[in-house]
């Protein structure tokens, strides 16, 4: 190689490096990290993007250059030079990628090991995935009854270990801004660790196909300071009413069952009175007023009961069939089931506080 070629190659190499570093430093391919883990993953990702950009430019550049420079000239019907290969060049492009992937494996391992480490003062939370909602449990005084929440609240800058369970099929726990994922697997308790570092509201998204409602299986996540977190957990404390004797049922008990999110109803249905914020299924506001008029010749009680046990029997217009699980008839005991119906029947003469369109639609079926 003469000095001119070497100088040219040197310039190309410097250009590639600058381009790689530029893309690595300025890209917005990942959401803004909101956890310690997401920050280290982002650093790793951006490092990989530097190398990826350089390789991308080398390959596409050589390809484009060849397409322009080595196209057949008009009238030239001869063949190209019979070059069969070059041991030195082939060895180079075998060895360099091998070294790169070795380095990337080491770096990735380091990042992953850091994510798996036990950290002091770790707060252990619990999440349960079911078709198509998440429900969260928090550590609490064993003498006090505490509700599950449909919204995940976590304290800022506290290492969290999330224990994950699945009630029916596989689900996937993922908060994109936290940069960690873990499958929820029926029959196993899996775990994922993260330390939230930015206050704000995020979403926990299910990424493992779990049925018809997979796309709507998204719950809110709130990262807040310790004081607000403690207040939130405190607000979940309840003093349950006495459970009615077998064969009996009360609206009070039904409201308690719904509020405690025992069956995940609030993940999909909307009822501000109980803090249920679901937007997937029909709203329950004023349900007692219209349930009796929904199906001709059927009283309100039967209508609600059937809608729980056989959800596909009457589909409210505008809502898809097959989203609500069809096994509540087996899951709920009779007291719970009938108490829930009692409670819902009592939802009468309510002022519609919702601004959402759905509620308005439903009150005039």
């Amino acid at each position, binding site marked *: 190689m003469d000095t001119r070629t070497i100088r040219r190659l040197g310039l190309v190499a410097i250009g590639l490096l600058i381009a790689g570093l530029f893309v690595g430093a300025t890209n917005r391919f990942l959401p803004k990290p909101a956890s310690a883990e997401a920050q280290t993953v982002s650093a790793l990702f951006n490092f990989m993007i530097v190398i990826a950009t350089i390789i991308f430019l080398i390959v596409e550049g050589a390809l484009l250059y060849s397409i322009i420079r080595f196209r057949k000239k008009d009238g030239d019907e001869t063949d190209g030079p019979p070059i*069969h290969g*070059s041991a030195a060049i082939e060895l180079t492009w075998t060895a360099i990628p*091998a070294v790169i992937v070795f380095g990337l494996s080491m770096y990735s391992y380091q990042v992953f090991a850091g994510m798996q480490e036990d950290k002091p003062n770790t707060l252990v939370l619990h999440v349960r995935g079911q078709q198509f909602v998440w429900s969260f449990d928090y550590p609490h005084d064993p003498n006090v009854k505490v509700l599950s929440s449909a919204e995940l609240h976590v304290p800022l800058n506290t290492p969290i270990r999330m224990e994950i369970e699945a009630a029916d099929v596989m689900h996937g726990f993922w908060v994109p801004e936290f940069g960690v994922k873990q499958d929820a697997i029926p029959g196993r308790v899996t775990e994922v660790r993260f330390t939230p570092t930015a206050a704000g509201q995020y979403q926990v998204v299910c*990424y493992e196909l779990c049925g018809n409602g997979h796309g709507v299986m998204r719950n809110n996540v709130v990262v807040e300071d310790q004081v607000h977190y403690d207040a939130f957990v405190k607000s979940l404390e309840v003093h349950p009413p006495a459970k009615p004797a077998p064969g009996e049922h009360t609206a009070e008990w039904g409201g308690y069952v719904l509020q405690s999110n025992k069956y995940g109803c609030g993940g999909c249905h909307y009822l501000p009175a109980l803090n249920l914020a679901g937007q997937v299924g029909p709203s329950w506001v004023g349900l007692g007023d219209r349930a009796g008029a929904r199906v001709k010749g059927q009283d309100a009680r039967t209508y609600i009961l059937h809608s729980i046990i056989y959800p596909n029997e009457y589909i409210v217009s505008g809502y*898809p069939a097959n989203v609500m699980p069809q096994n509540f008839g087996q899951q709920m005991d009779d007291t719970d089931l009938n108490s829930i119906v009692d409670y819902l029947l009592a939802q009468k003469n309510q002022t519609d506080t919702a601004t959402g369109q759905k509620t308005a639609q439903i009150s005039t079926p």
Partner: protein
Amino acid sequence: MATTTIPAVSSGLTPAKRSQLTKYFTWSLDHKVIGVQYLVTSFTFFLIGGALAMLIRANLLTPNSGLFIDKATYNAVFSMHGTIMIFLFVIPTFIGFANYMVPLLIGAKDMAFPWLNAFSFWLIIPAGILLLVGWMVGPPEAGWTAYFPLSGPIYSHADGQTLWAVSLHLLGISSIFGAINFLVTVKNMRTPGMGWFQMPLFVWAMFATSIIILLATPFLSGALTLMLFDRLAGTNIFNPATGGDPLLWPNVFWFYSHPAVYIMVVPGMGILSEVLAVFARKPVFGYKAIAMSSMAIAILGFLVWGHHMFTNLAPWTRIPFMITSMIIAVPTGIKIFGWLGTIWRGKIRFTTAMMFALGFLSLFVIGGITGVLLASVPVDEQAHGTYFVVAHLHFVLFGGSVFSIFAGAYYWFPKITGRYLNERMGKIHFWITYVGFMLSFLPMHISGLYGMPRRVAAYDPKFQAINILTSLGAFILGVGQIPFYINAIASLVGGEVAPANPWRGLTLEWTTSSPPPEHNFEGTPIPAPDPYGYGTPEGAAYLAGERNIAVMTLTHGSAPLLPNEQPTGGDR
């Protein structure tokens, strides 16, 4: 007699021409007929799978499902799309090309086991019908990966899921028989003078692919058998409630399905080597390295299945799979750089086949890079199960496999039919496909990393703009395939007549007429000393028809003559 001649006359077909046509609808033992049967069948399924993709994209124009289909139908549509594209389009298309071309490329008169060959093809038809019948009895809705418990009897009670398993079982058996046939054919039926390292690279690719199919597909069969037990016989192998393990399914399924990714791309890499060398008029750069990298991918491909399970394997077991997955980048890199070396300083002819091959190169490298990102466990924790993976797999399987399929189609159509595909229409096809592809799949990387999971019928409204862009790209891509079908039919009837060797290629399929006679070659064909000897005096002499010179140089070759057998026909 009258009854047979009258309709023939009225339709303008002579009895001879008619039998030419009807043989494609009958049980034929001719590998060329079987090859065409495979190709026509698979391109028909491409239309069905493509229509389903259009339905998916139409539905994702709005964040809340229900624009065209409800959520349950949506899940069925993408499950069918994946299954059809993989098992009834890409895999059988390559088997179709291989059926037609491998015997020709090695100078054989047919495959080693013609009866088995026909049987492999005729398993595809009932399998396809069974899958489609699933629509009428409640289609499968658990995705093409069919994870348990979702695909189990409790959560997928419709019979479509069972038919899906039976259909894939048949396709698996078809694949295994095909693989045995190719291995024996390549090993035993090369023409005298063709040593292992005189084999065209497409033959090497099919040899490697057949090893993968033979060793991997039995695991699919095993997994499907267990699925059928759970669904039909009341066993609880995958049911955690009674002691089964849902993670057994992805382990066994991916032990087949990751190698299956290579079943779908290694043959395409073989086609690429053929096309690039012929149209750059240069030898393949590093022939042995490219041949051996196919074998390396075949072996390494069995050690990486765990990277599909980075979010559910026990954490420490993810590390070895990360390392093996990263290593796959090395043989893949050897191929990509070797192809660049092939066109470098060549005299490139921009035929449609060449444009699809160059398009493959430009897209596959993106799929390769995102593959390395996904191989890193921590990065995968962001990208797993999202549209980033959808983008990655389409860059590999559409930008890679499908582009190479089209390169092969434009390259070999003159050999198969005796007529060229129209080049002008071909270039329109290429450009619409390329632009539509980019518009469709490039933005998906971003929506995925920002939090849009795959397989969702409804999504966060913040992703709507990117989804509209993707859908527009997909519609362009879909419309872009219509010129190909029109071109194929029009060229078949009235295309320009092609000579025996339209591209001045050195491989053996070009030494016989287009289309080839029933037993492929007149006499025993003599291969060129180097299948890619473009620019060499030997290559020029071989092309000029001076095969004796080729034979003379052959004696200087390093590989000894193998005692290859010619087909005796005893199998028939």
